[in-house]
């Protein structure tokens, strides 16, 4: 009986501390990205970026009077809406997160927003969901993104191609929300600028052989092939088959195709190809790269956006003086935009101080964040060209 009493007392004590812990000194933020699946080569650098921001805030000891922020990772799989919804559900109900940095791909992001975030009143800031459909999705002011909508990318892509003097292209896209949204917005922008899209055809990911798809693309013809796919998946298969059959020798790559894998797979075979992905030459990007050092690849697509997404969640909490999503959802736009003092990566401690003193900040971050309309980035793009087998920056726009 004595032992039983002692055990009960000990358990009660421990439970008490855990309870206190959970409320005063720790905030959990979910990091839900596709750690497996079509963009698994991009997500590690994205998660590292988000966690870097959380570490910076924790180390400063200034968020809501010295609260620590802990990341909780979950796998969105990028393509499986059911798995992503379950993962998000677990983050909220069992881990008790106060905000979600994610998700990554547009399809699963929409699914999590509709099924989990809305129902639980959870704030989500996605670093990479770019489907135009998300601009008009019902979100009760809970959903933001530090990536621009693809409607904007379609326009930028058109400008890049027109400047290169290309008026006729074939388009192939990966058969999901991201691919279809981007291909359609590009086609609309390109045709209204006077260009011709000879064919706009889907391809399925995860096939071994794309010669039939490339046959159709080649028959339609065009000066350049636009591949709105994933570099880890069918996108590379399409490029390989197009090169082998001599159907196309230069390509245009939107964001999902730009990564280290592209150089590794094709090297100088795709010299002269162009592309763009969200990125900026603002001072913030360089500061971010310096700050990361060699810890991970800071220039990997969406890694800076992830840092910014996580930073925005924490700054909004500070501005609202509360870590409850219902309270701080209204302050996200305030901290992201002017007026106020400009905040770059590595200056989160300063920003927290200003906000604690009742001041105003304009978060610039690593990607020159400017949230417009329904809470999405206005969009800065890095235009690239492949030279000597390397992806090189030609300019920012």
């Amino acid at each position: 009986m004595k032992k039983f009493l002692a055990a009960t007392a000990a358990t009660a004590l421990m439970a008490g501390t855990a309870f206190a812990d959970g409320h005063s000194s720790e905030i959990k933020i979910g990091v839900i990205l596709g750690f497996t699946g079509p963009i698994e080569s991009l997500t590690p650098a994205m998660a590292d970026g988000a966690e870097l921001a959380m570490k910076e805030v924790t180390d400063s000891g200034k968020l809501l009077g010295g609260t620590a922020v802990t990341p909780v990772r979950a796998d969105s799989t990028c393509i499986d809406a059911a798995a992503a919804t379950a993962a998000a559900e677990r983050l909220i109900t069992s881990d008790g997160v106060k905000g979600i940095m994610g998700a990554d791909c547009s399809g699963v992001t929409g699914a999590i927003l509709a099924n989990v975030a809305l129902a639980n009143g959870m704030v989500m800031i996605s670093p990479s969901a770019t489907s135009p459909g998300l601009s008009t999705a019902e979100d009760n002011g809970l959903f933001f993104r530090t990536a621009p909508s693809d409607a904007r990318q379609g326009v930028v892509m058109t400008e890049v191609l027109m400047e290169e003097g290309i008026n006729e292209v074939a388009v192939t896209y990966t058969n999901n929300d991201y691919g279809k949204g981007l291909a359609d917005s590009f086609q609309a922008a390109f045709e209204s600028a006077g260009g011709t899209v000879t064919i706009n055809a889907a391809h399925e990911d995860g096939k071994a052989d794309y010669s039939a798809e490339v046959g159709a693309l080649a028959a339609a013809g065009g000066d350049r092939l636009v591949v709105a796919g994933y570099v880890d998946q069918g996108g590379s298969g399409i490029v390989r088959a197009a090169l082998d059959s001599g159907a196309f020798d230069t390509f245009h790559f939107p964001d999902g195709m730009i990564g280290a894998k592209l150089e590794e797979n094709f090297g100088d075979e795709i010299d002269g190809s162009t592309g763009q992905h969200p990125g900026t030459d603002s001072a913030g990007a360089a500061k971010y790269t310096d700050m990361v050092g060699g810890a991970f690849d800071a220039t990997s697509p969406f890694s800076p956006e992830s840092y910014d997404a996580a930073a925005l969640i924490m700054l909004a909490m500070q501005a609202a003086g509360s870590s409850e999503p219902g309270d701080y959802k209204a302050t996200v736009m305030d901290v992201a935009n002017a007026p106020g003092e400009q905040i770059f990566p590595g200056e989160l401690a300063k920003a927290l101080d200003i906000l604690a003193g009742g001041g105003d900040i304009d978060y610039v971050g690593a990607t020159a964040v400017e949230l417009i309309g329904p809470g999405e980035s206005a969009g800065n793009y890095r235009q690239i060209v492949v030279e000597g087998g390397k992806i090189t920056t030609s300019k920012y726009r």
Partner: protein
Amino acid sequence: MDFLNAFIVLANFVLVPAIAYGSQLALGALGVTMIYGILRFSNFAHGDTMAFGAMVTILVTWWMQSVGVSFGPLPTALLALPFGLLGCAALVLFTDRVVYRFYRAQKAKPVILVIVSMGVMFIMNGLVRFIIGPNDQRFADGERFIISVREFKQLTGLREGLAIKTTQGITVVTAVIVVLLLFWFLNKTRTGKSMRAYSDNEDLALLSGIDPERVVMVTWLIVAALATIAGVLYGLDKTFKPFTYFQLLLPIFASAIVGGLGNPLGAIAGGFVIAFSEVTITYAWKKVLKYALPENLEPSSLVQLLSTDYKFAVSFVILVIVLLFRPTGLFKGKAF
């Protein structure tokens, strides 16, 4: 009208890929048909047997590449192929010993063996992923092209180019050699004849003194060889990813059934029928017709019968049509 350019376009995008793909399907279907003809069940584990053989070959290829062994302009994988054959043969003989022999002794019905083979399929599937992982693996080396588009254009001065990959050439040559060897073996050697006898009438074969265990063993050895060769050729020509071998099972079975299950000649014909219909029905004919027709008849649309998304559906439509009108397959198989 320009028939030469029309033909080159057709060859580049339809004939060459379809012939290579057809050869790969034919080799796969031969393995399925051998098992069906002699052991009397549909072996669903065939796709993953191919993946296993290809995996062993890839591992040996990587080792050879790391110690600097190469095969000149040809892929190193061809040198590693014998090791793949041995590895795959060991695996199927082991499977036969611990799984299939038990059911054979019980004279289990074919449908039970089909389910058993499905279990074997999942185990092999897991084994391959466990060893080499679920991702794409590259192991092709040597010259990429027999003739590339640029060289072809320079050589002939034509407007359209034709590319033939080394792997496509190797696929077709190897397939022809393997098929000739197989037919010679089945028709001319004593063991081959005893296998055919066992396949025709098991009881009669046993009475005339044929050792059933030996026939079974030889069959598995041949199937392992066919599966490994088909798997390696497919991996070389396209890419090695365990999941695509699992998907390959569908067109392979379609080929074997269209040709007539249990008939080796039918398996080959079936492979090419499926490959050509998949490619031609989803091909956009605009470019070919542009060259082949007089200018005023030039098509403005793509002239594509079906979008490429329906590639797999094509094999099944053909399968259904053949089963409706000629249930034993194009060449009289043993089925049904």
